[in-house]
């Protein structure tokens, strides 16, 4: 059983996500991790932007904040600096966090505020109907790339690393135990931790690219004999009927970790206890 279910707001369930949506699996893992780590969520805040991913904070009975499109990290920065005693977790999507909110992501990473940012990466704008995202792989079809995506996708983890995040990891909905471990490590980390989570949009991205239903998409994340290691793993290739690679090869696991004082510590904020400065 998942002890995290006790943390759900029963009146809000069932959630709004589509059948087979990978985001639900990430929520499943996240509440499990929260239940294991925190006896009470009194001092835990979950801050989200706008989009399918960002809706999930509303299902967790904590201090939850559903903000504007792309700006979750700015709200979280303010909250954390005002309340350094709290644990602040940011839930964002690829469009939210890398498109409209990309600027906030790089600056949050640069500042190294003690936040944990979980980016649900399904390579598309789901809530608005499956449009091209900054993470859509080249040539993939979306409702706004009917001839295939002409652009190149962001590597969110590389971006966060370059911007100065002190913990960067990538997991996938398909490997809940790995994701569990990565979220745990990210929450352990002092400083800005960033977890890029590959999930699936079955209704739009899956359908547009003829990738099948929830199970098919989920299993497509697994086409690899390569073991997930701490350092590197191949993300599987999946061909669509037209022969291009839907899934780019991406590294999995903890991709970057470094030690740098947090902004709270540098500012000498009282009440900032984790790690005692």
């Amino acid at each position, binding site marked *: *059983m*998942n002890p995290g279910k006790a943390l759900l707001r029963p009146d809000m369930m069932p959630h709004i996500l589509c*059948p087979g949506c990978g985001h639900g699996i990430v929520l499943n893992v996240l509440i499990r991790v929260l239940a294991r780590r925190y006896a009470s969520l009194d001092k835990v805040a979950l801050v989200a932007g706008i989009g399918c991913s960002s809706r999930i904070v509303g299902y967790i009975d904590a201090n939850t904040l559903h903000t504007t499109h792309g700006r979750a990290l700015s709200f979280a920065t303010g909250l954390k600096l005002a309340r350094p005693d709290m644990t602040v977790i940011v839930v964002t999507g690829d469009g939210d966090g890398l498109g409209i909110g990309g600027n906030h992501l790089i600056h949050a990473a640069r500042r190294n505020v003690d936040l944990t940012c979980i980016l649900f990466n399904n390579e598309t704008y789901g809530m608005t109907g499956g449009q091209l995202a900054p993470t859509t792989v080249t040539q993939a079809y979306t409702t706004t790339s009917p001839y295939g995506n002409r652009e190149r996708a962001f590597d969110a983890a590389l971006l966060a690393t370059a911007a100065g995040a002190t913990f960067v990891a990538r997991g996938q909905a398909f490997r809940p135990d790995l994701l569990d471990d990565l979220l745990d490590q990210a929450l352990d980390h002092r400083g800005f931790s960033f977890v890029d989570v590959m999930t699936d949009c079955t209704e739009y991205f899956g359908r547009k690219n003829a990738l099948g239903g929830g*199970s098919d998409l989920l299993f497509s994340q*697994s086409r690899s*004999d390569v073991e997930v290691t701490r350092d590197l793993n191949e993300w599987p290739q999946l061909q669509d009927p037209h022969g291009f690679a839907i899934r780019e090869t991406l590294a999995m696991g903890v991709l970057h970790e470094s030690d740098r004082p947090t902004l709270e510590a540098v500012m000498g904020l009282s009440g900032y206890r984790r790690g005692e400065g």
Partner: protein
Amino acid sequence: MNDPAQMSANLVVAGVGGQGVVLAGNIISEVTLAYGLDVKKAEVHGMSQRGGSVSAQVRFGPEVHGVLVEKGRLDWIVAFEWAEALRWLPLLGSHGSVFASTEQVIPPVSLRDRVEGKVRYPLEFTQHPRIRAFDASGLARQAGNVKTAGVALLGALSSALPFSVEAWHQAIKEWVPAKAVEVNLRAFDLGRQWQSAPPPRPVPVSELVPRQVWLSLEESWCKGCGICVNVCPERIWRLNERNVVEVQEVERCTGCGLCEKLCPDLAIDVVVESASAAAWGGAKLWQPN
């Protein structure tokens, strides 16, 4: 202990893809060869990708003919994963033993070669008193690399066999990559020590074997995506005419928890022994026994 040169036995190494099952079988075979024994080894890893079911049957003795172990003739099961141990129980002889890792590996990808769901777990065998389980992964981590869990299990197995430590070490050196020799030897020794030392807490079989499983489904949350249907190694879920999942043949549930962890709707709970059914009032419950 028996004279190693006259020893004959049947064993199976079982696990999932990526755990080193074939390698372990090779090491055991190598050891028996060092004592001049005849050895036959059969591997099943056809379609298994990472996480798929893999096994290696090893038969050795002064003279061995058939390659496959017959029902009731299996002496040892070395299981890297729980559900895989259960799979082999029907073949275990009355004096047979199981060395198993207590870690439950969630093998999401294993499922493709399990889809037929033909395996039935005979409950009577799960009560077998000679199941010995320990945290092989923990020992492996202690040795320095979690991937050496299988070799740690071999260490445990080795204490039940009459072959010398040196022979085991030699076989390990021959089969593992040069840079991994040291960590594997450490894991082997730790596994062997575990077996020779009394276990810190004798674990009753009933606790180890996840038979007391309840499955609970919050029907109103299920959106019928079918992930559990496809992901269950035993194929116990199906979508009914209302496009909501329900359980068939619940007794085949091993409690691996895969459906629970991969359910995007958070509708499934797999409760292994810890909670009473009463705690799940309201939700649909299945109880295998």
